[in-house]
């Protein structure tokens, strides 16, 4: 591929937009510290509602493709998120899904186990701490007087990833993305400015291998005879956590974080998303666990014993799809017919 300079400007325009997010991604960017100054030296920030006082009108006023690089974080949960994502796509040359929510749906993506009605019923009705005898639920449109009404965005039943909505150029996964990947933005910006060859479209920032490659714990034998709780278990700090029966998502998760959780003996929870050759992170892990759990004497196990073995896994979807449910092959619970 021949390199094509996408901008002639001396300084780039950078936007950071959001969907349903905890803003941990914003904090992670701020955590760049001194390097943040370098970043600001390379780009003018034209939109970052969390940190500066930008309005949507500021964004709408920009021309098409006027923004050079946009980081988008958060899950798409509402019409507002969708609208912003579409505008960002239109106004940006390079759109990057930043963080697990934008890349794979993230924690808010677990909403696909329920739907809007169930959520509203719980939050505004059934919760023990709620007193709502009149059954008042939020409405999307509120009439203030005859001529004026205000509207709230519509909440979708299903959470989506950015790429399910618009074309995405690059992905920087992680919850939040690890510092070394965020720092990678600086050389990318320099490349954009200098007209160097940019990474292939669809590139996921991170390792080309799964996390086990970076993990320093000792691997001996992958046959496991039970699942244990990492909080109550006595953990051998030298040995592979999965081999000790702790559900560590490392084997199915893209590396690049330098095993930051495992280094403090917490199992990988999979925030970096599926490995480069994996379509569906959760199903891969389920199939791996099913393959090695109790395999030693499998033929002699009774159904009850197998059930007991599996009962160590407390929350199947929450464990295996903690960050990737909207991106999975089966990405939501069947909706109840009403």
């Amino acid at each position, binding site marked *: 591929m021949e390199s094509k300079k996408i901008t002639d400007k001396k300084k780039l325009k950078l936007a950071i937009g959001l969907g349903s997010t905890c803003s941990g991604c914003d904090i992670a960017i701020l955590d760049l510290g001194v390097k943040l100054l370098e970043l600001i030296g390379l780009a003018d920030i034209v939109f970052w509602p969390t940190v500066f006082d930008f309005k949507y009108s500021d964004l709408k006023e920009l021309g098409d493709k006027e923004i050079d690089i946009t980081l988008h974080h958060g899950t798409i949960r509402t019409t507002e998120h969708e609208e912003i994502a579409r505008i960002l796509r239109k106004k940006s040359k390079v759109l990057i899904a930043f963080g697990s929510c934008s890349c794979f749906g993230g924690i808010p993506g677990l909403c696909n186990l329920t739907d809007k009605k169930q959520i509203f019923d719980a939050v505004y009705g059934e919760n023990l701490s709620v007193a709502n005898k009149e059954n008042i639920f939020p409405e999307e449109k509120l009439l203030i007087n005859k001529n004026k009404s205000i509207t709230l965005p519509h909440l979708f039943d299903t959470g989506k990833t950015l790429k399910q909505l618009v074309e995405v150029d690059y992905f920087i996964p992680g919850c939040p993305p690890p510092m070394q990947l965020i720092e990678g933005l600086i050389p990318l910006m320099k490349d954009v400015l200098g007209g160097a060859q940019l990474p292939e479209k669809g590139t996921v920032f991170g390792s*080309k*291998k*799964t*996390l*086990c*490659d970076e993990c320093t714990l000792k*691997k*001996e*034998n*992958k*046959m496991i005879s039970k699942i244990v709780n990492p909080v109550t278990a006595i953990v051998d700090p030298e040995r592979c956590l999965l081999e000790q029966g702790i559900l560590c998502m*490392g*084997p*199915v998760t893209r*590396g690049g974080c330098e095993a930051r959780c495992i280094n403090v003996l917490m199992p990988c929870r999979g925030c970096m998303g599926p*490995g*480069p*050759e*994996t*379509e569906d992170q959760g199903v*891969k*892990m389920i*199939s*791996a666990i099913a*393959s*090695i759990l109790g*395999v030693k004497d499998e033929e002699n196990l009774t159904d009850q014993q197998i059930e007991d073995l599996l009962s160590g896994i407390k929350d199947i979807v929450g464990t295996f799809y903690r960050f990737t449910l909207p991106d999975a092959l089966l990405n939501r619970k069947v909706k109840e017919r009403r």
Partner: protein
Amino acid sequence: MNRIGVFICHCGLNIAGTVDVKKVAKLVSDYSEVVYATDYMYMCSDPGQDMIKEMVKEKKLDGVVVAACSPTMHETTFRNTIASVGLNPYRGEIANIREQCSWVHQNTKEIATEKAVKIIEAIIEKLKLDKPLVPLSVPVTKRALVIGGGIAGIQASLDIADSGYEVILVEKNQSIGGHMLQLSETFPTLDCPQCIATPKMVQVGQHPKIKLLAFSEVEEVSGYVGNFKVKIRRKASFVDWDKCTGCGFCMEKCPAKVPSEFNEFLSKRKAIYTLFPQAVPNKPVIDSNNCLYFTKGKCRVCEKNCSLKAINFEQKDSFVEENVGAIIVATGYDLMNKAEVGEYGYGKYKDVIDGLQLERLLAPAGPTEGIPYRPSDGKIPKEVVFIQCVGSRDPEHYYPYCSKICCMYTVKQAMIYKHAVPDGQAYVFYMDIRCNGKGYEEFLQRGIEEDRILYLRGRVSKIFKDGDKIRVWGADTLTGRKIEISADLVVLAMAMVPSKGAKKLAEKLRLTTDDYGFLTEAHPKLRPVESLTAGYFLAGAAQAPKDIPETVAQASGAASKVDSLFSKDELYHEPIIANVDEEVCVGCGICEVLCPYEAIEIDEQDKVAKINPALCEGCGTCCAACPSGALELEGFRRKQILSMIKVFAEV
């Protein structure tokens, strides 16, 4: 762009009777990258195959889908067809529209037709991504290992050795011969096993191509078909067999007396002993658990009496390594553990014995020289009760299967008993009588008519001691009467089970067994002497209960399979095997523990999984479990499977 041809088989009415094959051909001819589609009465026939060949040439096809029966039937046929006109055989695929479609949807023709189209389209998607593959070739070591020196192992060894190939025969006991040598006579001809089996044993002992390793066990096997490496433990016999001539003087002088295993504990043997006088090799071993020198620290009588200085109390187990190309497993059977069956008084009453014990009592060379003196007081029993199916055909308590030989050996034993005790009476409690061999039914009738064996159809409800008699309560379900017999001897036809240690050996050899430990054959009908793992063959009762003629036939079958394997200098191995993408693999080790063929090893240096292509059987277990997606099964890559699923998912 592929140029794919689709050939749809009617299979007579098997497919065309349910699936509208013309419509299917028309629909798939419009599918992407399909340049030709047609249907024909029998694709596997010569004209059918010729049509495929012509069309490959005429339409310049680079891939062929035959929509027909299961790939296990004709995949090889059609791959050879297209290979004969220069196409890579792995660019040929079968779409199974018979077993997976027409046969199961006979009443819903329209749906069947729709489904047939989907199946074919999915296979087309797979074919689009099929790479041309080349079989791997590996050299063959033309030596065979036979494990077990019973009649199965003896026959197999002789057959292979007579074809000119070297055989290593490993036997755990100090002599070959197995259970057959314990028998009194054999049904239905009443041949004496000593007369028919010992010549074969001698042949084994003298055959220049057979290396007999008696009193030895297989310790470890590595490698793969054509190239196995076997480690064999030669157990310490404490007798230097090279010096020993088998004169037997040591056995005469040995003061220690031990119950004889060969005589089923009905007589005593010495602590230094051979199994029986015609043993091959005819060399003794010292039973260190019962030898006075080993247990008490003094004696050494045998040593003093051996003029050849062959006794060596210092001897240790030693190991030999052999390279072989094929392995026959003929580990035989045992009768089920008698302690398991409590209800018939076995172990409680001395005169309740099992079938093998009666064999020894009736054997002319046995402890009683063929006269069945009963174990308790040495009286000649006048009333003998035989109980069939003890442990067999009893899924609630023991084993669901039929042990197959008991019906016949009971006739035989009752008959020989009558010959030894003409005024005695034999009763047989049975469930069904199964005499389905050549001359078997006639043998039974002879027993009933000439020897007046009394057959009672029913089970025994209680056995208890009554003076020096054993009272047997039972039922005759044909007459509806209760039966009560005061017996002198009760014989239990115990279930046959795989021999002790066979399960452990199977694990070492990576062979699969059924629920009861019998070795699994590759196909119950069409590949009965092969194991699922290439290079391993099965013979005798290790695979399932069977009688001597069947065992010998299977042993010869296994031997001829080995011969045909050795007739080639190189073996071709299916290229449908797992591949590792070393760029992606992190060496997590999940595949390594799962591989049933031990084909995967984690390279400690590179931290990636390495596959030995000759060992891989392409089962795909590792690929399903691989969490990083580094493993792919050639011919069934993830992309292929996903593209097939996509076809089916589009409604």
